[in-house]
């Protein structure tokens, strides 16, 4: 029997948010790439919430964009509302969040993929990995077709052996009734990949015509809108936005839920997977936070070409009749009609400690993994891993060193380090508090942090990189200039200060000290700084942040220096921890299992103490000298 046989450099399994970024990165870096999807209609699908970005996730999108990824550009073209969250807080926690037109988002990404050179998008289910001598050589699809390749990137999201549940209904499908991928898991376990099973859930979609918005609070977008991508002209995103709405559950809702808990597969024990605590179903919220008499619900449009509204905050796996009953208790939803039921979904994923920070498997050469398959959750987390896996697969084929982002240069680095170092027991979500150097890792300076890397790996254009280099130069020059300026207690100065409710001067003062006053900033003081050059808003923002928070920034920069010292102390891959007799047994077992790449990573493994690290440092020194 003859089968189709083709050869590519890189195979990407899955065309969700991780798969798209991985395939685009690899193809754009010159590798002949094929990307498989179980359905051409599910490319860059958003099966849950209709947003891109949000607290810390917005950072991920910005970073992805700075490296040369697609998500930021794609949402800039397809959003229908946008907000900068936390804008009254410090610059480190400002985060962009946009409502997407889901189908427009998906279609635009599909077209981008199809228009990219070196990239083939193909509908087929991958059923088997071909591995020879610990090295991946390609994949097989359901039809038996063979695709040879030098690298494979697994981005199967929530599709592996997926099943969707509500009440006693169990459907063996992926999200939105799409086909599940039921074969690949056994091929992975046959190759000694350690699997986990996670679950997540989504709320019902409601027909907009059945909602009484007059009983809800309207939520509008920001004006002006700030784009996600550093390459997007801000003028192009000042569109007419659509509103979202806010409403609340109440005691009646909670009573119905409590009365029917035994009919939820979560509580009856049917669901085996571990769900995320940060994104609980409404059942979970009512049980775990029983002292709260109401929970917020966000009613958000799914797009311009549908009447479906997403009921954020009310994901559930209750039976259909209970779903109707509980949604009907909510103000504005009394007569609502459900278009799609809420459901929980279970899927296979891996314990990501089997991966290196490059997202390549430690035990299988050339096999990479990204996205929800790695135990994360969220479109942005997936996309961020996707681009890293795509870049590293390409670099590997080009015989170049992998791109390792670390905790000191990006949220992506924090995300990946957490995934590959700590054993994640539930779907992992990004949070700003996970980034210990978050003052330095701001969404506003993602381009300054990462463009050089994006350019050097060959993904970001020279034009975009040059722009960032110039921006950085202007910032440094202006900061230096401002630091030299003294302001006298002149009449116009006093008047300006007074107008902002700031204490007038008794003596001369440095301009930087005025900028640091909480009620003032760099822009507000322009009238008393006549020599100020004309600068773009993005440069002015950086100058302001740098001066205002200099003390804190320097402190974190110092900590980063310490951090780097340990990250640079590499541990040989073949080190046998059994030779290091002074290590405590627990530490030795953990280190043997995880095989950290450097001392820094070793120190973050739970169960490895500072004394173990000292022992390891001494051992490495002897090891080095003996070689």
């Amino acid at each position: 029997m003859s089968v189709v046989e083709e050869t590519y450099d890189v195979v990407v399994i899955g065309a969700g948010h991780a798969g798209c970024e991985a395939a685009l990165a690899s193809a754009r870096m010159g590798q002949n790439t094929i990307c498989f999807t179980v359905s051409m209609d599910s490319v860059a699908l958003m099966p849950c919430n209709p947003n891109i970005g949000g607290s810390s996730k917005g950072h991920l999108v910005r970073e992805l964009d700075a490296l040369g990824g697609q998500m930021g550009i794609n949402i800039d073209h397809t959003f229908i509302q946008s907000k900068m969250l936390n804008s009254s807080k410090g610059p480190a926690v400002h985060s962009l969040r946009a409502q997407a037109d889901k189908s427009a988002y998906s279609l635009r990404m599909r077209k981008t993929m199809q228009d990219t050179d070196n990239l083939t998008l193909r509908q087929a289910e991958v059923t088997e990995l071909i591995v020879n001598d610990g090295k991946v050589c390609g994949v097989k699809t359901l039809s038996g077709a063979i695709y040879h390749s030098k690298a494979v990137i697994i981005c199967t999201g929530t599709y592996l052996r997926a099943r969707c549940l509500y009440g006693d209904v169990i459907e063996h499908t992926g999200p939105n009734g799409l086909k599940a991928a039921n074969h690949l898991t056994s091929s992975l376990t046959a190759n000694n990949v350690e699997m986990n099973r996670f679950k997540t859930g989504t709320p019902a979609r409601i027909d907009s015509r059945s909602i009484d918005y007059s009983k809800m609070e309207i939520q509008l977008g920001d004006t002006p809108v700030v784009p996600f991508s550093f390459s997007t002209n801000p003028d192009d995103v000042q569109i007419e936005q659509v509103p979202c709405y806010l409403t609340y559950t109440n005691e009646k809702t909670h009573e119905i839920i409590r009365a029917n808990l035994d009919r939820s597969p979560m509580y009856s024990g049917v669901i085996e997977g571990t769900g995320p605590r940060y994104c609980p179903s409404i059942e979970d919220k009512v049980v775990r936070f029983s002292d709260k008499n109401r929970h917020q619900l966000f009613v958000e449009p799914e797009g311009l070409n549908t009447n479906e509204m997403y009921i954020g905050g009310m994901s559930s796996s209750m039976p259909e009749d209970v779903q109707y009953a509980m949604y009907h208790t909510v103000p504005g939803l009394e007569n609502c009609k459900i278009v799609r039921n809420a459901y929980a979904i279970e899927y296979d994923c891996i314990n990501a400690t089997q991966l290196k920070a490059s997202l390549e498997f430690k035990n299988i050469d050339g096999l990479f993994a990204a996205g929800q398959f790695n135990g994360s959750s969220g479109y942005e987390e997936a996309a961020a891993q996707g681009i890293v896996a795509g870049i590293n697969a390409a670099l590997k084929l080009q015989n170049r060193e992998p791109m390792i982002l670390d905790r000191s240069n990006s949220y992506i680095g924090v995300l990946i380090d957490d995934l590959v170092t700590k054993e994640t027991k539930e779907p992992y979500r990004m949070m700003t508090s996970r980034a210990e150097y978050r003052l330095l890792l701001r969404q506003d300076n993602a381009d300054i942090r990462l463009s050089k890397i994006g350019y050097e790996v060959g993904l970001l254009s020279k034009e975009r990189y040059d722009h960032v280099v110039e921006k950085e130069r202007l910032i440094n020059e202006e900061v230096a200039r401002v630091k030299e300026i003294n302001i006298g207690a002149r009449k116009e100065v006093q008047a300006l200060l007074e107008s902002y409710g700031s204490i007038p001067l008794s003596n001369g003062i440095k301009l930087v000290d005025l900028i640091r006053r909480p009620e003032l900033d760099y822009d507000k003081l322009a009238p008393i700084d006549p020599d100020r050059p004309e600068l773009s808003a993005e440069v002015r923002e950086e100058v302001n942040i740098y001066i205002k928070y200099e003390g804190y920034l320097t402190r974190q920069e110092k900590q980063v220096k310490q951090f780097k010292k340990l990250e640079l102390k590499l541990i040989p891959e073949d080190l046998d921890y059994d030779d290091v007799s002074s290590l405590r047994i627990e530490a030795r077992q953990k280190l043997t299992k995880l095989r950290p790449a450097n001392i820094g990573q070793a120190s973050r493994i739970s169960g490895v103490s500072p004394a173990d690290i000292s022992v390891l440092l001494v051992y490495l020194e002897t090891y080095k000298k003996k070689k």
Partner: protein
Amino acid sequence: MNHSDTICAIATSLNSSGIGIIRVSGEKSISIVDSIFRGKNKLVDCDTHTIQYGHIYDNENIVDEVLVMIMKAPRSYTTEDVIEIDCHGGILVLKKVLSLLVNAGARIAEPGEFTKRAFLNGRIDLSEAESIMDLISSNSELSMKNSIKQLSGSLNKIIVNLRDKILYETAYIESALDDPEHYDLTGYPNELDKKVNEMISSIDDLINSFNSGHILKEGINTLILGKPNAGKSSLLNTLSRRERAIVTDIPGTTRDTLEEQITINGISLNIIDTAGIRQTDDIVEKIGVDKAIDSIDDADLILFVLDSSRPIDSDDEFIINKIMDKKVIILLNKSDLVSVISEEDVYKKYNKNVISFSSVSLDGLKKLESTITDMFFSGDVHSDDTLYITNSRQAACLTNAKNSLNNVLVSIENMMPEDFFSIDLMDAYNYLGEITGETIDDDLANKIFSEFCMGK
């Protein structure tokens, strides 16, 4: 742990009374010592391998008269800049100088850390690597054991409680940042200011109690053992010269252990009175007995009290057998009564120091004091150094935690955005965690998820 900052430690054993050397190593050692030392010249201007005479100051107060030796990198043990300070004022002064160094930016060294640095910087031969690694791991285990032992239940509770409060506030801020549409921080800074002030004052209380030595169980751990009503509590009272223990003639009065710090000829003793040891069916008394037996292991010196008016019985023998390999002074108590046991017989039988003693007439007290002093200076008895180091480190952690909380107050006062508060709050949280030996891991994320309802 940081592997290149400036570390300090007492380099000499703490037993030998007055003189002690403090060693400082690291990039900033010269400037740190300069900030607390006043001599003819600034140390930074002095040549390497010279000795400077001067004084250590705490602000304007002289702490000690010292000699300071400078060894600039790389010609030193660790190959870093090393300073050695010869102090003369005894243990308390050494402790004080160490805490001044910590306040000036040094960190108390981990067990074996000077040696580790010497090795990592190529100063020590490869053949010694194995023993250095063993030293590090065994010492750190010992010191961990000690730090847990050191923490009395109440102190531990205070710290656990403080950490929990700090974590809760941080989790609240972070939840609001992660999910601004659910949690609002309006008016929160004022609330936090109040709470942080309360936290600081409870840390202050802890620091004070460390300094006054009530928690700091320094000195020679001295255990008073004996069967019920042998006169143990009277002995404690005599030694501490006040009514600390309840003394009655009902056997079994002391049901828990009592502790007292006393000084004999400048030597610090941490005296622990125990319940009388005998076979008993009383559950409460039995707990005290078990505790007394357990504490034998940690004792540096044991004062075993025999009632000389009664013959040695099986309870006495039971105790003696447990302490044969320890440093022991046997006191033949109640010498004011008719004695049925002779000093000579007891000495022959057990080969331990024996002293006739009376809490009533104070007969033998002088001899007891001089025997303890002799044993100390002959090196026969000494306290556990690691205990002392653990204490200094814990005190330093408290100070660091307090400084971090003060930074929070400064940020609130300067009207900084709320996300800046959590940085210093988490620092304080981590410093306190070092005291109780907890690791950080994912505490914050767990707290956020468990206490605050998030998300979609």
